[in-house]
């Protein structure tokens, strides 16, 4: 078995294409989930009292928070992989 057929259409994709599509979709899903988490954490940390708009201070806080969360992910990932 080296290929898949997609339901009623006559299109067939190769295993290789399937793997590539799956890789791409998994990566997309991961990024989406990650950014949702970043949004939640940084909203929590930076928007303490929601006003009528996002202030410059709040904006800078969000930028810093994003950088820090990326860094936190790296630190945790390193610790996790070191022990596997």
């Amino acid at each position, binding site marked *: 078995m080296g290929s898949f057929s997609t339901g009623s259409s006559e299109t067939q994709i190769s295993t290789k294409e399937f793997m590539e599509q799956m890789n791409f979709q998994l990566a997309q899903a991961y990024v989406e989930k990650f950014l949702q988490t970043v949004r939640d954490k940084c909203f929590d940390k930076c928007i303490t009292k929601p006003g009528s708009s996002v202030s410059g201070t709040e904006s800078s806080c969000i930028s810093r928070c994003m950088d820090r969360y990326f860094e936190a*992910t790296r630190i945790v990932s390193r610790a996790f992989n070191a022990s596997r």
Partner: protein
Amino acid sequence: MDPSLNSAELQRFLSQEKEKAMVNEMVTNLTSVCWDKCITSTPGNKFSSSESACLSHCAQRYMDVTLIIMKRVQSMQ
């Protein structure tokens, strides 16, 4: 039909992807938990040394706890 890849290769790919997904899931949860525990003040331009140490320790201790729980459950059976 694609002759260059076979079902065994697909199986291997799927099991690798499953492993990767599990690792990602673990790291994602760990980061969320440890961020909440360790980053208590407004984020700055870099982590303090105690903040980065906390994050690293947190990840390690979390995994220790996972093991402790597993072992305890095993000894209960």
